[in-house]
């Protein structure tokens, strides 16, 4: 088991470099001059002389050969910790604590992933701002999705071929095919536009005015009010897919011999379903959690675009548009690392919950 995990972790190393290199290659092939785009977008403000642009290019190492560029970009990611002796080092919540312990007086260990080309801010700071709201949206919607999907899947499977099952199956099937960008836009039009119902705000995940003066309770309710529609949008698809998995899993288990045995020895149907069948039928949808891990951090570009939320999806979209090399590569590397870890986790979970699967030789 441990051997298997270590081997899989080691295999991630070439994949990691492969992904970052592929990403770098794609960016290079685009051959868009980030400095020029930046000027066009007016991010640096007004007219800029040729010398200034040359200076920026030099600053971004765009004048260097490609291998040096790649090494610089990825070097930051592989050795993200550096000693910072300056007063105003970047520190992220947990890191400050850790760095105090790890370093001698006067120096702080900080997480440095380079700076964004867009506005020259450290990437750690940008991601640190965007990540919480994305994680919040994703976890909330997944929690809700699981809470609806599990009972619905059980009901549908236990009452197979009844009218109730057929109706839920059809509804779930249709929800499954609903495009997320459509649900989001429709919700926005009918519940937030102010032309039909003005129940929810149009954009953002918190009020822009007066948010800083609010007390904690007010802030929580303000954010909750803002994220109702995005969470609903995200929940729709996830819940449909999950309840289909749950139903299939339950149906598979219910046909097994040990369920027949349980019934034969006279257990109540309730006992059979919730005590014997449920546990095994949960396996597929629990292991799916691992595969959903990257979604939790990458978020949905579409949903964040519709509701004007600046989470990871929004940041990624902006970064790709520029293109902001360091930011794009950091995000892709981060998300793909979690994708690989997620796949590994779900494989391990499979082994833990299902002893029939072994990770010995030749997987």
């Amino acid at each position, binding site marked *: 088991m441990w051997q298997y995990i270590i081997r899989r972790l080691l295999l991630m190393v070439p*994949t990691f470099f*492969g*992904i970052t290199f592929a990403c770098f290659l794609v960016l290079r092939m685009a051959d868009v001059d980030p400095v020029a785009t930046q000027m066009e977008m007016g991010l640096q403000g007004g007219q800029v002389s040729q010398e200034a642009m040359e200076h920026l290019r030099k600053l971004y190492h765009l004048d260097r050969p490609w291998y040096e560029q790649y090494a610089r970009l990825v070097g930051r990611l592989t050795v993200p910790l550096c000693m910072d002796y300056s007063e105003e080092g970047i520190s992220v919540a947990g890191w400050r604590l850790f760095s105090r312990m790890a370093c001698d007086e006067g120096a702080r260990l900080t997480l440095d992933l380079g700076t964004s080309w867009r506005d020259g801010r450290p990437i750690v700071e940008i991601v640190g701002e965007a990540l919480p709201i994305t994680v919040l949206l994703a976890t909330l919607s997944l929690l809700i999705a699981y809470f609806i999907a599990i009972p619905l899947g059980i009901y549908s499977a236990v009452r197979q071929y009844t009218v109730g099952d057929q109706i839920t199956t059809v509804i779930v099937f249709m929800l499954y095919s609903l*495009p997320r*960008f*459509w649900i989001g836009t429709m919700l926005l039009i009918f519940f937030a536009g102010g*032309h039909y119902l003005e129940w929810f705000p149009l954009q953002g995940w918190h009020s822009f005015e007066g948010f800083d003066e609010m007390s904690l309770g007010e802030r929580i309710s303000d954010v909750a009010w803002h994220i109702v529609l995005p969470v609903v949008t995200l929940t729709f698809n996830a819940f449909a897919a999950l309840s289909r998995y749950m139903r299939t899993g339950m149906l598979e288990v219910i046909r097994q011999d040990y369920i027949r045995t349980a019934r034969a020895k006279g257990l109540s149907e309730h006992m059979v379903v919730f005590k014997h069948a449920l546990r095994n039928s949960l396996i597929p949808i629990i292991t799916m959690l691992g595969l959903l891990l990257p979604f939790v951090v990458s978020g949905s570009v*579409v949903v964040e675009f519709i509701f004007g939320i600046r989470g990871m999806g929004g940041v990624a979209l902006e970064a790709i548009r520029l293109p902001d090399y360091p930011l794009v590569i950091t995000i892709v590397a981060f998300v793909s690392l979690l*994708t690989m870890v997620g796949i590994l986790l779900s494989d391990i979970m499979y082994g833990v919950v299902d002893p029939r699967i072994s990770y010995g030789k030749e997987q």
Partner: protein
Amino acid sequence: MAAPQRKTASGVGSPDEAEGQVRVPPQAARSVKRSYWRMVWQQFWRRRISQVGLFFIGGIFIVALSADFLASDKPIVLRMDGQTYLFPNLRDPAELRMYDNHQIIDEMKPGDWALMPLISRWGVNNHDFVSVLALGHHPQPPTRRHLLGTDPSGRDVMTRVIHGTRVSLAVGILAVSIMVVVGVILGSLAGYYGGWVDGVIMRFVEIFLCIPPLLLIVTVLAVLAPTGWWMVVAMMACIGLTGWTNIARLIRGEIFKVKTQEYVQASRALGGSDARIIVRHVIPNSISPVLVAATFGIASAILLEGALSFLGFGIPPDMASWGGILTEARGHIPAWWLAIYPGLAIFITVTAYNLVGEGLRDAIDPRLKT
């Protein structure tokens, strides 16, 4: 390398040859070949959901192919000034370029006649200047003049939804063809050879799994700067190149199961080359789950195309695409007609493909039947 690739591709294209050589003497092989796929077809057709799905897909295809006959600002056949124009709606002849159907009708003399499309008022890129001048650049709600309303620049939503069918169907089908070809080739190589070949290909699978299609499309846009239908082709290529990993993994798993079977060993004992074994025996016997995955793949490719157009990447605004119409709705909030109709079109298409996929899966692999 070139030869087995070509063979693999043709092996995918003609699944009728599948399941042939299994434990069957040569003279009987032909009837068995037919009966496996006939059985699948019977199983498939027995279910109402597959029938409904296939029926809708057929309908959508008809709409896509006849879009110019359903909605166009040029007549289908026109007899004017002693001259007959055949299919001006398709060919857009220079003499008629300045006219739309209304002006043509106005200029008609006795003896002239025309066969008009169903919606003859608006073409894909006809701006209704009358309403734009009177009411400004705002989308107009459905009226008798525009049955499904207009977009902000005064173009008819119904015409654009009808013409948008083409983009979605083309993207769905061609993207999945790319996925299947790449996925089957790499997946079968990995599955058949195992060892380091498998290791390398699986690393590639992981790499491609993690590249966001958005990044690839932005790059292709920047490098090739495609226009019109080339944009659609570029989009299909991007979706196809990021989506093949699933199919590769699927066929790899199948081949792991198949390659130890007796008939593969028999073929090897008879001196069959690796290429021959893979193309003639291994792939045909593990292709059926790929068919199912491909059908679901079309549905998700259409969704992805919609999402990308919605984000403003991809299909240029002068081409009608469902995602492109939908994205206007976000900027003009009360205009529900800009959202509901293209969304409905996407929804129906995706549901139809999913239904067919469901039916196909049940027919091919009864174990998974729910």
